[in-house]
């Protein structure tokens, strides 16, 4: 699997989202996180930013820590941008955002960035279209329809295959197996359109969808879920990330 850059995050005592181009690759709240995440599928041809949102949590951690870097997976090259931040756990602070531009050493050949419409802001019509595209996936999941869900996720699958130079057959087989497992458990929570939260990322090319309180759009009662993001591509909304 091709890895161009990793996002390295360390956090405790905070509620935080860390990612690239406003896409939260990792969210943390009330726990300690020390992890690395592949970011290929969010690397755009230009205008890339390391982005984060940090707010206090009430976990009672002895210190509040937030460290963020985009790094070469082998750590052979210096990190183009990074931040480290620390406060005593008892200190209150106002939430803050981080947005630092960077250029990756290369950009994978994803279709999305050339095909998706970039919204400066989402009007009601666009927001509704985005929500309904997400609810189509949720509906297929609620019915346990793996084949239909696979169809709805095909654009995303093909772009992820391009992003990580993966074997398409193996990737789709893995996806099918994961869906069969998740959907077989049942318990996904239905949502009304007005309960779906929307927000844009990747320069307005992607609309992130979430359920109430920011949970993944497709969330399972036993835990876990499928984050869904959609884009307006060639006149229709598709699941893109």
């Amino acid at each position, binding site marked *: 699997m091709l890895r161009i850059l990793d996002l390295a995050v360390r956090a405790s005592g905070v509620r935080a989202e860390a990612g690239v181009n406003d896409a939260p690759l990792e969210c943390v709240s009330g726990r300690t996180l020390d992890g690395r995440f592949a970011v290929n599928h969010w690397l755009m041809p230009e205008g890339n930013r390391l982005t984060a949102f940090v707010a206090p949590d009430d976990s009672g951690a002895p210190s509040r820590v937030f460290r963020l870097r985009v790094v070469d997976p082998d750590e052979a090259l210096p990190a183009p941008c990074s*931040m480290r*931040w620390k*406060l005593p756990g008892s200190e209150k602070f106002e939430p803050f955002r*981080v947005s*630092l531009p*960077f250029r990756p050493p290369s950009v994978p050949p994803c279709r999305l960035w050339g095909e998706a419409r970039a919204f400066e802001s989402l009007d009601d019509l666009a927001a509704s279209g985005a929500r309904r595209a997400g609810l189509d996936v949720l509906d297929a999941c609620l019915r346990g329809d793996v084949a239909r869900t696979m169809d709805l996720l095909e654009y995303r699958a093909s772009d992820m295959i391009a992003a990580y130079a993966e074997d398409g057959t193996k990737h789709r087989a893995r996806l099918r197996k994961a869906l069969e497992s998740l959907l077989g458990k049942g318990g996904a929570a239905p949502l009304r359109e007005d309960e779906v939260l929307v927000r844009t990322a990747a320069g307005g090319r992607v609309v992130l969808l979430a359920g109430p309180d920011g949970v993944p759009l497709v969330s399972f009662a036993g835990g876990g879920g499928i984050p869904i993001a959609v884009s307006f591509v060639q006149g229709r909304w598709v699941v893109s990330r």
Partner: protein
Amino acid sequence: MNVERLVVSGRGLRFEAGVNDVPLVRSARGEPVAAALPLELWLLPSGNRMTAQAQRLADSRREPALDVSIVRPDDPDPECMRVHWSAPEDLAFDPFDVCVPFTTDGPPPESRAWREAARMDSLDDEAIRGARGAGAALLAAFGKGTEAVLETLAFRIEDEARVLGEEPDAVRARVSALVGRILLRRGPAPIAAGDVQTRLVAGGRAVMLTSGGAELVWSEGASMPVFVSCVGGAWTVTR
């Protein structure tokens, strides 16, 4: 005095870095800059933030880089925060800013300015007039000599002495020497009120006055940054 320090290094980009939107370190043309500054004069009772703005220079031949940190005096891990950024020289990046909260190791030095100054969310016309008026009064004092300037700066001198733990006379002597250097070089040029730019800083407690991107009081070889605040209903120079 043992206080937090701002440590900055940058090159190949236009930037300013400081605390609470006060630009303490700047590079206008991408020249390399490295500085470590004590922060006592700019530490607010609460809500302190490390702030920076950076902008690409189209004609820079250097790989741009900016590193800004707050270093605490008595912390075993003294670098409580740091933002590091670098890029290839040909990266066409949009301007970006940094605004990250920090707290001080102990209570910040007691400052009358930050305790008594009116806090503003934004500058309305009346506030801009008041701030510019205080700047104009300072410039006018330069026309009357050192004593007149020191009188106009009385609040600032007294408050800086309190914050720095120095005798007011010591601060007064330092300011007097600077005023002397400015006056030696023909004194600051007169500036029309409309040419004075205002910028709200220090959590809305002070207004930075500049003209044409330079400090308000400027003479060949010497300059004085000017910050004014509305204290007890009157605009006065506070830093």
